């Protein structure tokens, strides 16, 4: 916490400081430089909090249409009743009251780069000195013929943005007939949280094994392989008869015709690239990803699927006062995770502080230390470190935890994953 009582006394005098840490955003001088952030998810909210920790005087406005944010990390565990959606949900209270951020409940719709203003759906024009954009991804529904946003909001939830669709998916697969079949269509790279489709299948299988033991989960993959594959396959063999005739989980890679090309909602079936039609009780299509709509509408995507950025400081190539972070960017070789979105945010806050004070921003380093689970008794970790070197982002290190079924190590990893989820939520929203 950098916004100490001493800082506040310096800024506003002792009486204001008494009321503070609970500081009202209105207390900030109108002439103070203004950081505006679009998107109150992981990247945007981390930017707001870490910017405030670096500087007590800057005005910060966060534009986000929803009153609450539902964390995706951990949301697969809603499916096997291990956590509730409420536990995944946070508010902007701390960001507003403790960090003095002006949270505007609205949707950003346009940027005027010359006038340095953001327009919102309610018709406001908000002037900025720096703009940070973190709207998350959007989905290419028609990459699977017959699929649509409407179907996703109905009986074919993707649940790739945690919320009502997560609960719908849970209701559908937990309520299916005895011996029913769930199809999960896993997307091609890049998409957010590469292990999450397999984590999802594992958690569903854990629940089904107890409540509907003859049910099956068929993962149809648009990729020939996937991250942590040896870990998941080892665990699935041990727990779910993977690779046998009685397997509860089956995985079909792209090389074996796993790619789903169309959906027929009426017969509840999908067709694969090989022309095979597969009927299922529950169909969970995780759609192809692209940059968020706001990034397309404002030209930040520059005609591409993702937002090109300057790899040193995540500055947009369209305008030097605009930074873009999180899932919506093309930041190869970085993967799209919340962990990285939050670390990009912290670095961008440093860069903005440097510009504000006329100092050197220093030099970046980003880590992505993900902890994933396959069940309540199996965990795995990946440690990625990225450096900026020779004008590029370079992957210095990626190390996966070894595959093994040692119950002690796995219990420790699961505990780390659980604690990580909680500490991560607090690191951004508290």
């Amino acid at each position: 916490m950098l916004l100490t009582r001493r800082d506040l006394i310096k800024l506003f005098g002792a009486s204001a400081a008494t009321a503070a840490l609970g500081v009202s955003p209105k207390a900030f001088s109108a002439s103070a430089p203004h950081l505006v952030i679009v998107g109150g998810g992981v990247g945007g909210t981390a930017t707001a909090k870490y910017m405030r920790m670096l500087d007590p005087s800057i005005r910060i406005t966060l534009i986000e249409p929803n009153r609450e944010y539902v964390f995706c990390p951990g949301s697969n565990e809603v499916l096997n009743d291990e956590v509730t959606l409420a536990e995944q949900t946070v508010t902007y209270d701390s960001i507003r009251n403790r960090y003095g951020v002006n949270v505007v409940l609205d949707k950003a719709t346009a940027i005027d780069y010359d006038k340095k203003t953001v327009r919102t759906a309610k018709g406001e024009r908000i002037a900025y000195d720096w703009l940070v954009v973190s709207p998350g991804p959007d989905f290419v529904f028609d990459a699977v013929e017959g699929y649509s946003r409407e179907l996703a909001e109905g009986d074919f939830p993707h649940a790739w943005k945690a919320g009502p669709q997560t609960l719908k998916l849970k209701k559908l697969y937990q309520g299916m007939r005895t011996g029913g079949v769930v199809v999960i269509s896993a997307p091609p790279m890049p998409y957010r949280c590469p292990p999450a489709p397999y984590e999802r299948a594992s958690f569903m299988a854990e629940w089904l094994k107890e409540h509907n033991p003859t049910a099956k989960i068929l993962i149809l993959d648009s990729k020939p392989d996937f991250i942590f594959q040896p870990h998941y396959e080892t665990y699935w063999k041990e727990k779910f008869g993977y690779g046998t005739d009685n397997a509860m989980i089956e995985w079909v890679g792209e090389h074996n015709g796993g790619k789903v090309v169309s959906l027929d909602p009426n017969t509840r079936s999908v067709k694969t690239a090989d022309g095979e039609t597969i009927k299922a009780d529950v169909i969970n299509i995780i759609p192809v990803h692209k940059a968020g709509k706001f990034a397309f509408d404002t030209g930040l995507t520059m005609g591409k699927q993702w937002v090109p950025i300057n790899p040193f400081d995540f500055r947009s190539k369209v305008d030097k006062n605009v930074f873009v972070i999180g899932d919506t960017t093309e930041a190869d070789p970085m993967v799209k995770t919340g962990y990285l979105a939050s670390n990009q945010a912290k670095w961008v806050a440093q860069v903005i502080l440097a510009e504000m004070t006329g100092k050197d921003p220093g030099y970046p380093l980003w880590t992505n230390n993900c902890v994933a689970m396959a069940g309540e008794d199996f965990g795995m970790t990946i440690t990625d470190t990225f450096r900026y070197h020779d004008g590029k982002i370079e992957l210095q290190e990626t190390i996966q935890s070894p595959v093994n079924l040692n119950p002690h190590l796995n219990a420790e990893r699961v505990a780390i994953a659980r604690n990580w989820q909680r500490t991560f939520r607090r690191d951004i929203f508290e």
Partner: protein
Amino acid sequence: MKRILLLNLLLTIGLNAWAESDIFIPPERYAKDPAVSGRVLGDNCSACHGTRGAVFDESMPPLAGMDRDTFIKLMKDFKNEVRPTIVMNDVAKAYTDEEIERMADYFSSIPALPWKKQTLH
């Protein structure tokens, strides 16, 4: 794929068998780049150890207020695989000794939050 350092050492320890897709480039490659500050390095640890290293939970000890020399000793032991852990060996080996010292300066300068004042949930 690049699997450069410590392979033999790791195999003899046996805790860390390398996966096919693992990559490791020793941090010395970046020694001539401008220095990454202790704060930028240290703020990467917050998802596990809490904002500014000041949170503890059932798995992760806090870093804020840690004695500088203790921090350096622990991190070097993690890095050199002297002290086997679940994740910290993999985390620590990415950094040069100078970077570890800069992080030690950062964390030792932050007041520790007494454990009693925290809640787990």
